[in-house]
């Protein structure tokens, strides 16, 4: 019983991080209708940025998170302008190939600079934990959970309560309708890409304190972001939370009962089955643009 409770709590902590981590992927997919295979590499890029800042300048990854976001924001805008805009209207698999190429470029560039060894951000609070009744809570996990929750809430507020957020949702729901009220969709595409990439890099800071990473972990993270996005349905923050928790439970429980090695397999099979049987997500609804 205690074990089950412990696993449930671990799932919740991890799942909330996954939800935040995947928000950018889910948003760009929902709004622009593109699948960004380089997304995982963006997260890893964030992890390396915070690693560098922490190792060489002593800046805590939590403090450098806004900086990662900003770098990501401008990078997202740049990539959208220079690359994605040019192929968005072509066959959808062209974007897949393009972003895959981008993934290779980022991973190999990181590999050149940092080599393939596993790196980790060893903040002083990395190993601390405390007891809560029968539960063992790792402080880092709790911290990442809390921050993920706050940041997810921020994204939610941005989408729900600001004009920028509303215009993003409007474009996602009906591009032509958005043009009718005077919104320029191509501007919204830029902002969404910036926001999405910013979230990816920022979540990289959290990922970096949570566990070790190498330049080539991006692919695996893209799959996770994909799974989180498809479980609940695209683009909505609530759905990402549901998807994140699903992935959290799936990983924690398969990891515990079948072994660490099966975790990624479980995510992939879940992704395969979802696509095959429920491509619109568990709730079956059509939330964002998805045409």
């Amino acid at each position, binding site marked *: 019983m205690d074990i089950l409770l412990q696993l449930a709590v671990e799932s919740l902590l991890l799942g909330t991080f996954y939800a935040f981590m995947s928000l950018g992927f889910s948003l760009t997919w929902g709004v622009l209708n593109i699948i960004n295979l380089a997304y995982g590499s963006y997260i890893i890029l964030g992890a390396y940025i915070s690693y560098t800042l922490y190792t060489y300048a002593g800046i805590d990854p939590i403090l450098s998170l806004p900086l990662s976001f900003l770098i990501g924001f401008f990078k997202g805008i740049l990539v959208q302008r220079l690359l994605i805009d040019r192929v968005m209207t072509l066959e959808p698999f062209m974007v897949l190939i393009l972003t895959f190429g981008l993934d290779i470029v980022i991973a190999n560039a990181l590999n050149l600079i940092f080599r393939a060894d596993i790196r980790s951000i060893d903040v002083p609070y990395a190993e601390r934990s405390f007891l809560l009744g029968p539960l063992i809570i790792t402080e880092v996990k709790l911290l990442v959970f809390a921050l993920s929750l706050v940041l997810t809430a921020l994204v939610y507020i941005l989408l729900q309560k600001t004009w920028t957020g509303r215009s993003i949702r409007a474009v996602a729901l009906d591009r032509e309708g958005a*043009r*009718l009220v005077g919104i320029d969709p191509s501007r919204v595409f830029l902002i969404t890409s910036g926001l999405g990439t910013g979230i990816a890099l920022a979540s990289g800071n959290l990922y970096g304190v949570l566990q070790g990473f190498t330049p080539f972990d991006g692919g695996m993270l893209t799959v996770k972001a994909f799974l989180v996005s498809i479980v609940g349905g695209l683009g909505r923050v609530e759905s990402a939370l549901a998807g994140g928790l699903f992935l959290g439970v799936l990983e924690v429980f398969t990891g515990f009962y079948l072994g660490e090695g099966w975790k990624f397999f479980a995510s992939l099979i879940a992704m395969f089955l979802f696509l095959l049987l429920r491509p619109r997500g568990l709730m079956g609804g059509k*939330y964002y643009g998805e045409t």
Partner: protein
Amino acid sequence: MLLEVSDLNAGYGDVQVLKSVSVNVREGEVVAIFGSNGSGKSTFLKVLAGLLKPWGGTIRFRGRNVEDLPPEERVRMGMALAAEGRRLFLGMSVEENLMMGSWTDRGRVKENLERVYTYFPELYEKRKDLAGDLSGGQQQMLSIGRALMSNPVLLMIDELSLGLAPAVVSRLAEILLRIREEEGISMIVVEQEVSLALEISDRAYVFDLGEVVDEGRSEDLLRRDSIKKTYLSVL
């Protein structure tokens, strides 16, 4: 003259839909456009709103040529379209849909909301509901309401009565007449239902196979037999 459209040609791919169409709208005037299916009415509004690029011809709005401007620019200048298929944001609340209508007039969103709610009290009651959960009639009101939120000089409404019950249509017609009276804005109403179109308009154009085949004061047109012929093509 508020709007001068002359010699407009447009279509999709290589299929020409509009053939040398010329239409004028004066300040404060309500103009109806009707014709059977496939006569090019909706395409005409699409071109006016900037959603479809014309092949040729000019559109002058408030003395300025707008045919090359993107839709956003035209909304800013005071053109608003309640489009075919309504194009609402079905996953957003009624109020949010209305607010989006004020995208180009964000500073006055509160006043605009109040104004639109006085015309459509049922939208106020449903303001928290998702647009997707509204009935057809309420969606049409929302569509018109959203267009009004940008404080347009020219309101364009496509297929006003399509799929709506007669009672709903009557109410919509009343509201439109009221809006016109209180705000003095000009309107172009595309409508299949002849009697309705003529009832709420000053002048009307009859479209057939992409061409303007008849035009005139609405009262006169109502008496002409040509309408029945265009519609039912009975020889």
